[in-house]
């Protein structure tokens, strides 16, 4: 596609025709989860109607077909993030499970009492709690690199936190609560100069930023499929092969073994070593379909469209008296978090819903970020490739009207 035609794209998403409380749906909760294009929905129907059986085991035709499609999705993911090999793509149920997997395998094998793990003050709970659990289990210590008022990492302070005891840096690529895009290349270079591996939480970044794990040189990259227009229950852990090879397995069971007796078990090769049990076959195939869909439009075109939407929304939001934007980093993705004077985000959420507008109101699973800005919650509008300027106009008119009603 050479021209980005948002009206044509909207036709691909059946849910966008829904009426909410009698109004046209304006879906601006994409940072929570994205809607699905017909191609993804069709791919699941296709699998269950024509291609479904268990993978990696049967010699019968359907099992072979199912396995081929499942493994083709792995190759699509590999190419999408430019990993070096299919062996580096582990399917999990979401970014959260991927972080937990690294914490409980790599972490337990390599992080001991007194060692340190460095995160940032803008992390989602899913990149805080797994490390806290690991620290509790091992006696390691969690260190938090601070952010400034605009919502940017204070790089000098991050750098100072790295020392001989630091065994892992785990940072968010793009913040879900603030929209901040972290300087991940510099973070990785700095950590690597001290031989510290880096995990990037790409849950928010993946639908907005073209990711090249080899160019970034990150050691682990995690993301969820459902924020990438793919079905829920799909997620990816990318890890450098050399690291994955020596990591102990995560869960035991079928598919992750090569040979089992009652005295010992020989583990399967990568990536299967980390994929115990029957995987989420149909939805992973759906993830492959989502990647095909995105590739057909092109990440650069998507990123440009979303950047334009964010600019437009930010300019309009700044003109509203009593509105304060939370998170104004220089490098920012398609997220507009805000609070209104004397109007609680939940009231904003309910009132906008009555106009057909879906936004998120709450702490966005980032309670420490809320504490930092001294707000109980924020309202958050987040944009995707199918959103339009007109929808932002509807949102802003809605905000102005509700300010009036609250008086």
């Amino acid at each position, binding site marked *: 596609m050479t021209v980005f035609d948002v009206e044509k794209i909207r036709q691909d998403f059946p849910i966008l025709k829904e009426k909410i409380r009698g109004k046209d749906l304006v879906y601006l909760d994409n940072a929570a989860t994205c809607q699905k294009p017909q191609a993804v929905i069709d791919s699941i129907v296709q699998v269950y109607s024509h291609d479904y059986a268990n993978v990696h085991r049967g010699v019968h035709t359907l099992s072979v077909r199912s396995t081929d499609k499942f493994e083709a999705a792995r190759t699509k993911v590999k190419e999408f993030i430019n990993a070096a090999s299919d062996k580096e793509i582990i399917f999990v149920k979401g970014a959260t499970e991927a972080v937990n997997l690294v914490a409980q395998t790599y972490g337990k094998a390599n992080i001991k009492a007194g060692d340190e793990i460095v995160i940032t003050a803008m992390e989602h709970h899913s990149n805080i709690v797994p490390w806290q659990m690991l620290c509790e289990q091992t006696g390691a210590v969690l260190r938090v690199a601070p952010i400034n008022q605009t919502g940017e990492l204070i790089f000098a302070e991050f750098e100072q936190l790295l020392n001989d005891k630091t065994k892992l840096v785990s940072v968010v690529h793009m913040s879900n609560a603030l929209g901040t895009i972290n300087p991940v290349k510099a973070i990785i270079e700095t950590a690597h100069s001290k031989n510290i591996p880096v995990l990037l939480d790409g849950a928010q970044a993946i639908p907005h930023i073209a990711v090249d794990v080899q160019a970034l040189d990150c050691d682990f990259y995690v993301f969820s499929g459902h924020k990438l227009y793919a079905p829920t229950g799909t997620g990816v852990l990318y890890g450098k092969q050399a690291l994955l090879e020596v990591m102990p397995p995560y869960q035991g069971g079928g598919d992750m073994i090569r040979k089992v007796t009652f005295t010992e078990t020989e583990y399967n090769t990568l990536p299967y070593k980390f994929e115990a049990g029957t995987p989420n076959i149909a939805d992973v195939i759906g993830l492959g379909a989502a990647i095909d869909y995105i590739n057909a439009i092109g990440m650069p075109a998507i990123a440009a469209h979303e950047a334009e939407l964010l600019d437009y929304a930010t300019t309009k939001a700044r003109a509203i008296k009593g509105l304060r934007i939370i998170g104004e980093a220089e490098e920012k993705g398609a997220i507009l978090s805000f609070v209104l004077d004397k109007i609680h985000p*939940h009231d904003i959420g309910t*009132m906008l819903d009555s106009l057909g507008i879906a936004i998120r*109101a709450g702490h966005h699973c980032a309670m420490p970020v809320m504490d930092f800005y001294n707000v*109980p*919650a924020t309202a958050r509008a987040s944009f995707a490739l199918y959103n339009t300027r007109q929808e932002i106009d509807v949102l802003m008119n*809605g905000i102005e009207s*509700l300010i009036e009603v609250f008086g």
Partner: protein
Amino acid sequence: MFDDLRDLYQEVIFDHNRNPRNFRVIDDADRKVEGFNPLCGDRLTLYLKMDGDVITDASFQGSGCAISTASVSLMTEIIKGKTEQEADALFRQFHEMTTGKDEHFNLEAIGKLAVLAGVREYPARVKCATLAWHTLDAALKNQQQAISTE
């Protein structure tokens, strides 16, 4: 523009949100309980002054959405002068009004509190309205620890 919401956001609710009643600390309170809704961050502290089993004064501090602020504000007004049993009966009625299945709930019996009946159509907001009353319930049972809606 917000016609659909008139049942939920009645003028009385805006009024109590703008000017919450009994928004103060009772220094020599006999009961003091904190209520917290972790989903939306609503937080309040309820203070009761008792004379035997009669609530002689009630007040609160905290921050929350319009529904939760109006709910606790109205509650502190209505429970003043009530006995513990009467307050407990009100708690039960309020709970039934906001969460119950009875469509013929007698709104007149609950007086002014009926302005909050609209939340039953908004499941995501029921806890905003009931936080105050669950906190009261804990205070009536003389519990010390903070209560949470989750």
